[in-house]
């Protein structure tokens, strides 16, 4: 092999050589952001799912509590009804010396007279 001189580039007149821009290395930041978003979305989804599950459990607990309270309410209504049963009250009233009134007492209010005084009447026929 023999050496030979480089051919000199012929520079035409009117043209000039510009310094070329350096190629930049590809950045990892966008990828990192995407990964972070993906991880955040994944975690967010997981959290949302867990929250929903927890809410579902809470809801089930609340429904159960409502059912229990409703059942208790019914039991109390039953208790009240049993306590109000005339067959229970009448003998107790009898023991206490209470009697069923044999006459009807009426308080007759005269609407024309502003005085609060009222006349009392009973079944014997007395009236104002």
């Amino acid at each position: 092999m023999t050496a030979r001189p480089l051919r000199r580039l012929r520079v035409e007149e009117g043209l000039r050589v510009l310094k070329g821009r350096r190629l930049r290395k590809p950045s990892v930041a966008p990828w990192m952001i995407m990964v972070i978003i993906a991880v955040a979305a994944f975690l967010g989804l997981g959290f949302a799912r867990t929250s929903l599950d927890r809410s579902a459990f809470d809801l089930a607990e609340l429904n159960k509590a409502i059912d229990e309270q409703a059942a208790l309410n019914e039991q109390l209504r039953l208790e009240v009804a049993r306590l109000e049963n005339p067959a229970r009250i009448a003998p107790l009233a009898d023991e206490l010396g209470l009697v069923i009134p044999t006459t009807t007492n009426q308080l007759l209010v005269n609407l024309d007279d502003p005085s609060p005084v009222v006349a009392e009447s009973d079944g014997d026929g007395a009236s104002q």
Partner: protein
Amino acid sequence: MAVPTPEKLFSGSARMTLIGLLVVAAWLGMGYRLFEIQVVRAPELAEEGLSQRLVTREMAPQRGKIYDRNGNLLAMTVESQSLFAVPDQVTEPLYVAQQVGGLLGIDSDTLYERITSDRDFVYIERQVDGVLAEQILAQNLAGVFAHPEPTRVYPAGTVASHVTGFVNIDGDGQEGLELMYDDVLRGTPGHAEYEKAGPYVIPQGYTNIVPAVPGLDLTTTIDLPLQYQAQQACLDTVERTSAESCWAVVLEVETGEVLAMVGAPVFDPATRQTLDPSCEDADDPNQCRLFSNFVVRGMYEPGSTQKMITFAAALEEAEVTVGSIFEDIDDELELLEGACRSGDDDLHGCYVDFDEHDTMDMTVADIFTRSSNVGTIKVAETLGQKRLVDYIEAFGLGEETGIDYTVESPGLLRFDAGCQTCWASAAIGYSVAVTPLQMAAAYAAIGNDGVWTTPHIVRSTVDAEGETEVAGIETREVVSPGTALLMRELLASVVEDGTGRNGAVDGYRVGGKTGTANKLGEDGRYTDETRASFVGMAPIDDPQVVVAVLVDGPDYDHRTGGLAAAPVFSQIMEQALHRLGVSPDGEPG
């Protein structure tokens, strides 16, 4: 072609290639399997999985409640526990029988037999109170379990049992309003489908819930305190007169609403047992299941209470006036020759008055006040059979009143073709059979200026959207207001001067009519036993309430309507007037 030598075949690079191929094949295999599972068979496998996790549960509807007119509970449903055993799992049957039997009051031998049977499942006791069930379950007895079950309870106990009726252990209506309105009260069952993993419901899993539609509530026309008072009056009367039973119904005149409907002896709707001392030693269990409501179902010959219809018809037809005089009224009337001498067919040809009296002239008012059978037949004679029967039918006898209560009796209004004297018997309340309710409705027509109204016991049904009034109330004019007014005066005279003095109520002018009818024996002949009744209304100038009382089989000392039934009427009417806030006569309303 050159064959590779073994050294070359198992050289490092070849082995790596082979392993790589195997890994790729494995991945491809798994990928295919995944594709098959996730894509090709996905729907089928998803369904199979769901079916393994899916639980379907029937949701029983809540049976509707029954209220009185003031909102007092008469019947409701609560949850209880039904205890059961799986005999195979009961490891200590003797201990279980003694422990559980002792707590529940069940004979331990009987329970032992039950839990050692070869069945897969046996009930120990159904519908046990929740607290007691918890007490038993807390002992952790092997093979003993419980499941929730609705139970019908009646807070008013026996007081309204003849109104509400009852349900059987499965919650099906068997008697009274529970049976009549079973479809309305029952509701519609629902169901729930959901995914379950072990004992836990999978949150956000598949769910399909069709909620049960609860039954409608019923608001009755019954006034519970009055119902109690009426029942007590009847119970006291059964004791006072040694009667077999006592029945009473209270109607509001204008509306036809049943304010009270009672009977004695009573029964407990929860246990479905008659509360009668004789039941304790009863050989026949049916003897203690006397649930039938005689007020709507029982037929009896009304006796003199029927005369109200005879007189109303004669007055309406202008055949007589209140002052019309019938001459020579004897205390015996022989419509068929020889009937009074034969002693064989006394009431089909020979008619006698309850009290002996001399032959006399009597006005229509006298005949009614003294309850003369002979005089009444003379009045009926002016009408003739056809017109008399027409009026009896118009007053609602011989057909169901239409009350919204299960299995109503129509009574009996049918004369044998050859019967020549049945019209006369019917005029005085024999040869016809009525229910106490029919008589109450007939008298209510007189109280309501001659307008008959269908008696009814349910005012409205109630659901989540509100109250719906029950339809089907009919009215019809039976007699004119003028005739009704005359009849009310005649009825008042019975209480003031006649046979119904015991029916008087302090402070109010009352009208009513006594009735005493001999009971038919098993041989078809009349016996000395009677059915004593009284039907009346108050206040007579503007009737608000009608009360009908029937005392079945009182002792001889109380054998008449005036002695047995009128005092009960008086007690019940007094309470009814107070409950309705009706002013005493002479007082401003």
